[in-house]
């Protein structure tokens, strides 16, 4: 084993932060983040599918031959998505209704198949669990941040609680599709800026040594 479990977990939180760094899973990131609650619910549904499907794939990785692996993975993922969808519809019908077709679309969320291809099929269960939990938590945080920004600007509230007073004129555009693209583009630029500053600091620290 090349890397420690802690490293596999931590890399998903910044170094390989899914939507902003790997640019995977954009469809749910943009579509369901019109409020913080929706973003969080989508993140939780995704982490469930990501975690369970990659554990299963890691378990069966030696019995599935290379030629049929992609269809096999997709069937595993689609089955688990069906489980998540039926569970949400039964327990949280409101959230299930507002997320609509985006729950079934987790099937084609490239993060899940991407992690299966890049990690789970080559590693045993423990590193796979650490890797998917890290990536999943990074994904939840990203979605919740997106949802919070759009909800504050578009409704003046967070998680449905009114935050700003009557004086605040909501920016309706932030709830609409256009706002999702604008906020996401801005956040990608912000992540680029932070990481280039970090790299500069590391470079100058190495120089002075």
């Amino acid at each position, binding site marked *: 084993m090349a890397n420690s479990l802690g490293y596999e977990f931590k890399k998903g939180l910044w170094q390989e932060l899914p939507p902003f760094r790997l*640019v995977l899973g954009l*469809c749910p990131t943009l579509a369901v983040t019109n409020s913080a609650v929706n973003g969080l619910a989508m993140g939780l549904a995704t982490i469930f599918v990501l975690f369970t499907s990659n554990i299963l794939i890691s378990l069966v990785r030696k019995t599935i031959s290379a030629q049929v692996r992609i269809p096999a993975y997709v069937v595993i993922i*689609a*089955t688990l998505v069906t489980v998540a969808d039926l569970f949400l519809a039964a327990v949280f019908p409101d959230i299930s209704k507002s997320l609509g*077709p985006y729950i079934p*679309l987790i*099937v*084609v969320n490239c993060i899940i198949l991407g992690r299966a291809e890049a990690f789970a099929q080559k590693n045993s269960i423990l590193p796979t669990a650490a890797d998917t939990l890290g990536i999943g938590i990074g994904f939840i945080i990203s979605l919740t941040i997106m949802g919070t920004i759009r909800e504050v600007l578009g409704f003046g509230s967070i998680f449905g609680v009114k935050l700003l007073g009557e004086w605040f004129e909501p920016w309706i555009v932030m709830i609409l599709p256009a706002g999702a693209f604008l906020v996401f583009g801005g956040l990608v630029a912000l992540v680029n800026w932070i990481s280039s500053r970090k790299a500069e600091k590391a470079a100058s620290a190495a120089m002075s040594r």
Partner: protein
Amino acid sequence: MELILIFISASLINNFVLTYFLGICPFVGVSNKTENALNMGFATTFVMTLTAAATWPIYNYVLVKFNVPFLQYVAFIIIIAALVQFVEMYIRKASPSLYRALGIFLPLITTNCAVLGLALFMVMREYSFLESIVFGFATGVGFTLAIVMMSGIREELEFADIPKHFQGISITLIIAGMMALAFMGFAGLIRG
């Protein structure tokens, strides 16, 4: 009349890329050259129309008849993957020049969420068979329109002076946001 409304609605007003965020991956990934964007658009339109034609009978005559509609996600994704594979094999045999133009894009279409989204929306809105095919074709046309427009803008952007941190994905998405705003203007065309 109904069919024309579905066509306008799916291609312009409820453009899959700009209002439902479906198919963002190829929209960002393949939109750097107009020629590639056009080929990707054609390949996607073709697969979407076929998907609509294939999933409708299977959903209505197999899944509903045997009372297992909860299997729809598994069934749809298998149909789409198989369809793309067959289309690829057929084009390779029938027209090598077309295969060279579309070849590398075809496998990518399986993971294009717009294709699965199309099948799901079709079931949700309870379209008839003919309506489904028009819907599939119109969605493909809308996708082609969005990706070709985007590639045209990005070709011009190569000469623009963009702030360092906004280069690449970031500026592409901000432009997509502006395109989405412009497409909102189509909403006045029909009601509902």
